């Protein structure tokens, strides 16, 4: 009974969270479209130049996102496919997460 209550309460809260996240994604898409329009109509720059500029400026943030993605994929390999987490994490960072999953992460230990 208590487990049911827990599930119901948590789902209500998660719906509210989902609404907020959808709103953010929508706002983000609008911002992205406006940015694209302004950059593509500008004579001083190009979309690729702006993306490159953004990437070089936020390289540390990109590295962090990559690190977190590697962590989560290594976690998946560990919890779902019983793999060595440290090995999966290292391979994810070196080979990228999808390649790690393809060559190491998905194979179940016998």
């Amino acid at each position: 009974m208590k487990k049911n209550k827990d599930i119901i309460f948590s789902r209500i809260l998660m719906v509210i969270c989902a609404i907020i996240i959808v709103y953010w994604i929508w706002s983000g898409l609008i911002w992205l479209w406006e940015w694209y329009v302004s950059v593509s109509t500008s004579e001083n720059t190009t979309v690729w130049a702006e993306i490159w500029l953004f990437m070089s400026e936020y390289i540390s943030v990109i590295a962090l996102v990559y690190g977190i993605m590697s962590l989560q994929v290594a976690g998946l390999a560990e919890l779902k496919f019983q793999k060595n987490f440290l090995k999966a994490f290292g391979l994810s960072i070196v080979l990228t997460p999808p390649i790690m999953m393809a060559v190491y992460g998905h194979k179940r230990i016998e």
Partner: protein
Amino acid sequence: MKYLNVVLKFPRTLIASVFLITLLFAWQVPDIQVDTNIKNMIPSDFPIIQSLNRLEEILGGSEIIVIAVDSKSLLTHDTLDKFSRLLEELEEMDETQRVMSLYQAKDLEPTEDGFDVVEILPDLPTTEQEIAELKKRIQNNDLIYEQLVSRDFQKMALIVQLREGSEIDDSLLRDKINALISKYRGPEKIYVSGLPITRSQIQVNMQQDLKKFLPFGILLMIFLLALSFRSWMGVFLPFIVVIISIVWTFGLLSVLGINFTFISMLIPVMLIAIANDYGIHIITHYFHQLQSGDTLSKEQTIRLVMARLGSPIFLAGVTTIIGFMSLLSHVMVDAKKVGLLASFGILVAFVLSLTLIPAVLILLREPRLVGGKNYDWVLTAFLKKWAAFFTAYPKLFLLLIVFLLVAIGWKIPDVVVDTDPNHYYQEDSPFRISNEIVSETFGGSTQLSVMVEGDIKDPKVLNAMMEMSQYLEQQPGVSQVLSIADQISRMNEAFHGGDRAFRVIPENRNLVAQYLLLYSITGNVDDLERFVDFNYKNAQILVRINRVSTTEIQNLMNEIDEYITQNHDESVFTGVTGFGAVMGALIGILVRGQIISLIVSIGLVFIVTSFVFKSIKGGLLSIVPLSMAIILVFGLMGYLGIELNAATAMLSSIMIGVGVDYTIHFLWHLREELQKVSNLSSAIENTMCTSGKGIVFNALSVMIGFSVLLVSAFLPIEFFGFLIVFSIGMCLFGALAVLPALIVIFKPKFLTKMQRH
């Protein structure tokens, strides 16, 4: 642990609630306002800030930007013509109140009717002879020579006085000025200096620093946790607690309308370094329990771990929060902010570690690939030998420590206090070079204002101002003193055919009024508005200060105050203010804040630990390693010439808040060990091998967390990073070396009392 029943019965609801609150706080983060104004480090009710606001209200903005033009052919027609256009553009800026330069400079020329106000540069020189005449006129006018034009006639200053200012955006202003001067740069060199430029530079560097600190700090933490736990759960749970605590803290910062300053940059780094500690302890014991082979259910395991860790984690959390909260006793506004927000972040991390982590653990499958080879045998062996040494030769060791403390501690009085924002940067940074050139050539871009009240046309007041100016000119570091009294004495000189003997204040008030009337007819009365208000009731003596330290500015201010008290009517000279004065006042605030927060944090930690161990000796033992670390850190600052500034002023409180955890963990576990073994040396050795290891890992993770500060663009933050890493190392040494040696010598009863129980 009743709360744990709720957590374990409603884990999903708890996780969803935390997620929702995090989203709501995250929503607030983009609204955070950045503040780089040095003035705002001081409480607004402080006299120095009130007088500065009053000055700005009466006489307009007191902030200036100095643009220095460097050219070998400065006084030629082409160069002067080129920069007259820059001057026009500067004057047209909305932020400009007035521009002072060679172009507007005036001379008082004696005539039959009195004097005329004539421009130094009525027409641009075209011939060598005209250039030579211009040089002569400049040399004869000490308001221009070496003030607006350099001694070698190769540099010229355009001084932009800004409007009264809260609405001025420093970054926009900097961009505007940079865009303007880029049109005129080359072959001439152009340097820009001034506090608004400094502030906008700080803002740019703050953003760059945050882009480095946060991602690299978090990445470092992820790698450390991955290597320590070798499990996703061991990485992700402490990591998510840190992230949530950072988001909540920044959300609160925005909700409370607190501005983000360059000192606030320390908050996320502190949370990355400290906030994962509680989670790490819980995960370590959870994994240890899973590996122990007990046939407990998952819920029983979690309950057992939380019951074991509750007290030490609670104590460590409380003392860390106390350390940070002691910053609230600091006078500096930024230190209070850091104290409040870091305490909140740590409280969040502490609460989430005790609630969110068990809630996630109960839902997740138990990890199967926990542990591995016993990789810490080297550390265990080392700690055993370490414990054996300190228990065998405690007196010799403590004697050496006392010697070390005396040798390093005597340098503490040499610690210099510095609040100059120029010193946030390396000496070879282009920004600082620009400031140095302006300071060396034109007498600096820092100003003090001596405020004057009364009938400004009264010769008595004017003579008092002249005396004050003469006194100020003799002070070291003062490059220029300007006031209405000086202008009136020049008018008197011009009125008497340029006879230098008449460069004095006329005896008659009516004559002063006539001079001013004459000046307004032939010249522009606006020239005087930076010195005196419209009603001639308030005036200021402007004191430009050359390259001096903020300690010297503070000394100068004290001397001026003393001079006023001894020689003048204090109702006439109402105070010393200006941005130079703000920097000077910050020194006293830093020193006072440092002492108060140090006493408060040490005192509170002593009270809490005495209460917990039910022993005053227990309290004293807890603070001895911390006190040792404080002496060593400040002594080292004296040795290396590291200044006490806005960042390093918070060192002691943070060091105490973090470092006390190690002594608490050590004493707590030693007391438990003494319940199992009667021999003190064996108990210390066992504590060293169990709790000692945890303490070493904990300290290392904090040190590595703080080490990201070493890549900061700001020298104070960089030094803070170095000193905090050193001080945590000293706290670690104090807890694992000094503390056991003291215990062996004094054998405190509070440790053995538990044994009887």
